[in-house]
């Protein structure tokens, strides 16, 4: 690395930082929205009436079988043809959140179904209602169960946020590409962007480990 790169990095610091901020916003928004939606998806997959279950199962299977890029493009270009006009940021976040929700839904379903039936029966036997059983017995166990996989999904969302560059969202990758087209320093700036993504995901992973440790049940 020579000083030319440092110089150019300094020159490009504002757009790159803004890009980083946008990337983080996209990731955060889609993880939060996707997780909230995904918990409902998971609950529906386990507890809803049959027809609702089938409907939701269709939704998750369809979403999970579709490339994220296709979802992003569809959300931006197709929705506008049916009169829903979203900006690239909103359309992109919507696509990622939907994608995230189908994955989180599966995680929640798996976690809930891995809890032995005896847990529900024991909760019933002491007179807990179903909402209470869920809040104090099933939920906390499912949460611990799903956490490691959820951290993975969160990291995937950060990576998937780069796809929004295709529809012109000024996130980190698009800003990096713009800088490269001006400076022709593709190697350096791609490495730099890659490094930033790594830092974010490494942070998420460390945070996940920390929460896992904090909530571990002694045995």
């Amino acid at each position, binding site marked *: 690395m020579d000083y030319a790169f440092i110089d150019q990095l300094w020159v490009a610091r504002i757009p790159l930082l803004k890009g980083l901020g946008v990337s983080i916003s996209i990731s955060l928004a889609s993880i939060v929205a996707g997780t909230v939606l995904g918990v409902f998806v998971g609950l529906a997959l386990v507890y809803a009436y049959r027809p609702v279950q089938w409907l939701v199962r269709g939704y998750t299977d369809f979403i999970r079988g579709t490339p994220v890029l296709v979802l992003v493009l569809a959300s931006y270009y197709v929705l506008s043809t049916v009169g829903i006009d979203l900006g690239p940021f909103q359309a992109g976040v919507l696509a990622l959140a939907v994608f995230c929700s189908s994955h989180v839904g599966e995680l929640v379903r798996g976690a809930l179904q891995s809890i*032995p039936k*005896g*847990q529900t*029966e*024991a*909760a*019933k*036997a*002491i*007179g*807990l*209602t*179903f909402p*209470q059983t869920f809040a*104090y*017995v099933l939920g*906390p*166990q499912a949460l*611990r169960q799903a956490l490691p996989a959820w951290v993975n999904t969160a990291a995937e969302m950060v990576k998937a946020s780069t796809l929004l560059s295709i529809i012109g969202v000024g996130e980190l990758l698009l800003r990096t590409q713009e800088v490269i087209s001006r400076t022709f320093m593709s190697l350096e700036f791609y490495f730099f962007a890659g490094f930033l993504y790594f830092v974010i995901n490494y942070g998420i992973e460390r945070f996940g480990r920390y929460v896992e440790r904090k909530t571990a*049940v*002694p*045995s």
Partner: protein
Amino acid sequence: MTNLLEIRDLHKRYGTVEVLKGVDCSMRQGEVISIIGSSGSGKTTMLRCINMLEEFQGGTISIDGQEIGYETAGGARRRKPEREIARQRALTGMAFQQFNLFPHMTAAGNVMLGLIKVKKMSRDQARALAEKWLDRVGLLSRIDHYPGQLSGGQQQRVAIARAIAMNPKLMLFDEVTSALDPELVNEVLQVIKALAEDGMSMLIVTHEMRFAYEVSSRVIFMNQGRIGEEGNPREMFLKPKTERLAEFLKTSTFN
């Protein structure tokens, strides 16, 4: 005076298989009844109907005169609302073969959950009761241990404390020693015996014949979804009246 438990013509089907074919049973306050019989005879199912862990298609079960699980209005039989069923489940306490302790809560937490959420006690009240009952089952020193840190016998004793702390009118024991290593069986049976001596009303599904003989005021022998024979333990074990019971006792170990 009404009986504590009154079961009338109880019928239970799984699909087309009828597992309970009309069971009648009544039980007075303070009685300890052991239910014996080979596997598939319907003894566990009967127990699970009493607290609505199983639905049943015919007959009635009443505890203290309250009809459990279903109500009949205008000739139509309807399942009671869930909230009401949850409330009725608290009339009974149950201990399971697999303990079913909540693994993410300490021994105290397991006992306190129902006290706080169902009985609406304060944390302090609940903690005091948890201490009392964990002491009674000999586990006060393990009060802040998690189930994963306890032996099978200890877990089962916590599970019994969890059920009994709710102050049920009737305790249901579903093969509570079947999943335990032989050397751990006794500590659990001792706890149940102590409860019997306190006058707790109990229905005990068990394969421990010696225990059933010693602890019960009455024994019920279930056979193919019906009560095959019932009576006091002395008569039942020493002078069985039916061929079936004699046969069953021969194949089970009385030790």
